């Protein structure tokens, strides 16, 4: 049986909980938990502290970028740049100049402050490993017995090449995520584009000999009506099955008009979700869908975009421009999802 495991799990199937449980299981194993966003990392840290008060010494919790910069890039930067102790931090916003080639690594990867461009981080890490004869992976093998990567669907581009190196290393890798919730990306590189989102399943299939895959389609968050709607957004995935609370009187999916809005909000007190700040939410305080990822709410009310509205009338998911956003929005709720039409 391979040492590596991928858990592809529906929203509300306790993905992160599983990561935390397994990471705490054996204090004899030096363990890393990593994920792309600071928010998710903070939540992981909070949940660990809620269980065991302080993060135990066998456990390291750091973001994907910190992990790459501290443990792959800085140690072996000289194999790429020819200089030691050169790279400072991360440049999240900038990009290298248009005509800069990889053969000029200093300009290609770094800005004038010697901060590394976000798009080149995992590219650099892979290159450092190659140029140093595998020292990056060798060092990680000395440091960690197991690595957990949460929200793995956020990893794109050269991240996947690095993930491939990790799967083939001595370290036991557990990756957890839901391609249906691919709303964020660590970088905007065009590398491995076809394996983003739904395509990630294909990437995994090609590696079935080194990585087991466990599909979880049960949700203990959303009730059966919500699961039904969420499943219809991604018909190619196994349908979600609710193991949470049954549907009560007013639970389920509601379509409401702007006129009904005040009464609805008063009665249900839903969490309001919007596409972005440009959405007209009739003066109601709202959260961007992207930000809501990872959270659970009793009830949500969504201000849908045009394609979402079309989908609600014709049920044709293929025309959705961002099915993953709608999926995330719908699956935040336990009891009811409202759409303002």
């Amino acid at each position, binding site marked *: 049986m391979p040492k590596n495991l991928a858990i592809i799990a529906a929203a509300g199937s306790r993905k992160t909980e599983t990561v935390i449980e397994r990471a705490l299981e054996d204090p004899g194993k030096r363990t890393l938990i990593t994920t792309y966003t600071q928010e998710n990392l903070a939540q992981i840290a909070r949940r660990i502290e809620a269980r065991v008060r302080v993060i135990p010494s066998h456990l390291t919790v750091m973001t994907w970028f910190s992990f790459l910069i*501290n*443990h792959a*890039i*800085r*140690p*072996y*930067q*000289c*194999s790429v740049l020819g200089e*030691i*102790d050169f*790279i400072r931090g991360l440049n999240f916003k900038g990009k290298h100049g248009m005509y800069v080639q990889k053969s000029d690594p200093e300009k290609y990867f770094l800005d004038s402050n010697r901060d590394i461009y976000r798009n080149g981080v995992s590219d650099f890490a892979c290159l450092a490993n190659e140029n*140093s004869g595998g*020292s990056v992976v060798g*060092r990680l093998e*000395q*440091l960690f017995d197991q690595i957990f990567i949460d929200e793995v669907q956020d990893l794109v581009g050269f991240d996947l090449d690095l993930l491939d190196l990790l799967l083939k290393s001595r370290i036991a890798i557990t990756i957890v995520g839901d391609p249906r919730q691919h709303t964020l990306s660590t970088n905007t590189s065009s590398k491995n584009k076809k394996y983003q989102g739904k395509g990630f399943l294909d990437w995994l299939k090609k590696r079935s000999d080194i990585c087991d895959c466990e599909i979880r389609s049960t949700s203990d968050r959303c009730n059966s009506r919500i699961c039904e709607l969420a499943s219809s957004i991604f018909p190619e995935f196994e349908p979600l099955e609710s193991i949470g609370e049954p549907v009560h009187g007013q639970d389920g999916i509601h379509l409401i008009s702007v006129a009904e809005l005040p009464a609805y909000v008063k009665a249900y007190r839903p969490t309001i979700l919007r596409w972005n700040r440009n959405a007209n939410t009739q003066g109601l305080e709202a959260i961007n869908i992207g930000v809501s990822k990872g959270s659970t709410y009793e009830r949500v009310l969504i201000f849908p975009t045009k394609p979402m509205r079309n989908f609600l009338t014709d049920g044709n998911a293929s025309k959705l421009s961002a099915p993953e956003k709608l999926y995330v929005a719908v699956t935040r709720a336990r009891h009811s999802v409202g759409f303002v039409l």
Partner: protein
Amino acid sequence: MLAKIHIENFRAFREFDLDFRDGLNIIVGANDIGKTTLLEAINLALTLRFRGRPFAYELSPHLINQDAKNAYVAALAAGEQAAPPPEILIELFLDDRDEFADLKGENNHLKENAPGLRVRSAFNLNYSAEYRKFIEGDGPVTLVPTEYFDTEWITFGGNSIVRRSVPVNASLIDASALRLHAGADYYLQKTIDEQLEASDRVELSRVYRSLREAFSEDPAIAAINEKLGETQKEVTNKNLSLSIDVSQGASWESSLVPHLDDLPLQFIGGGGQSMLKILLALYKSLDKTHVVLIEEPENHQSPASLNVLVEKIRERCDGRQVFLSTHSSFVINKLGLDNLALLGDNAKPFRLTNLDPSTLAYFKKLPGYDTLRVVLAKRVILVEGPSDELVIQRAYRDAHGKLPIEEGVDVISVRGLSAARFLEIAKPLGKRVQVVLDNDGKTVAEVEERYAPYEQTEEISLHVSDPDQGPTLEPQLLNANGLGALNEIFEKDYKTKEALESYMRDNKTTCALQILEAKKKIAMPSYIEAAVA
């Protein structure tokens, strides 16, 4: 454990490299050769502290190596405005173990993939404008402007370090210059004390004393002291406890001082203090890898207590690495020549284990002292017997106006071919060594032939007596000075050279002593004159 160190421009070292051994490392060398610097550098790399304080506060022009400073000052004086100020670099390499993997990477001057720690104090480019003003200012630059320096402390992984995350614990004990607990406050407090009215002092001590009683009666403190007493039984059979120091002159500003049998630590003799500090460090529990740095443990110790101390150091080297600098042949003999690292004038350290095995075996049999003499002296003259030693002393004084010892020159009497053994040590250390040899009836070439592996250099030279002037020192002296002059010095009245020579052979040392002390001018054979030049 610590595998090796690389130092640039720090105190005694312009550039310095030394490989370490597991367990015990004994550092031997003359004064000012860098023994202390080495221990300080190890401690600095592990703690970023220098003499107990954060290095950033202690960084000053005086910590820059003098040769490096002089080169920099000279370059500026010669108009090379772009000459970079010398930077301090200390790189401490660790063994490649999983527990140190966090420190691993290629960020070291060798670009070697190893775990390690790196301290670098270098010019900060943000100060370029100020620096330009500094070098273009009035008057010549005479020191390195360390106020424009930044200090960086990183792992070889390239990440900055939090002290807590260093997987190695360091204890630096300097027994040669014991500082009192909170020593700086001690003098300050004394000054204040002198300003106070007698009644103030009485009141102060009363309150302070009652505070102490309350403190020691507190059940929590009592429990802690009981525990301390238990754990320190191995160290000393006296009772160690924590208490507020209320003795006259002790700081009332609530300093806690370790007490031995109710005596504050600073009231115990220097020997006791340093013994206690060393032993406390050695008996520290081993939760992290532990490095103990001891400077000259022989200081303040009587031979008997030094014996106990050295025995304990030897015992406690298991599972920790001990670095010890010493001048004491006793310590070296006891702890073993294998562990010795010799620092020479050119700061190129040398280990006795690098020697030919038979030479090492020879030195292991010698009393450690003679081995050390080669290392500690500025220059060595090797002679073939005690009488030669005395005559050479005289020759040296005639040539230089001072006895050799006054100029750090050591005249060592060695037997037969063992001079060659000393050359094996002296050569890698870059010591100046002259070997004074009798021809014993052979030709000069034949005598030199025996030393063939030791190429004569500017530092190392052989001086063989002229076979025409006699096989040994006595006829050589006789031929140089003549019968009459020597009869006068020895207060004898031999009629023939043969008779006097025979007398000299039978009373070698007495004659040599008389030559050393003679008021009259002595003519020295030319090979001796050349040797002492």
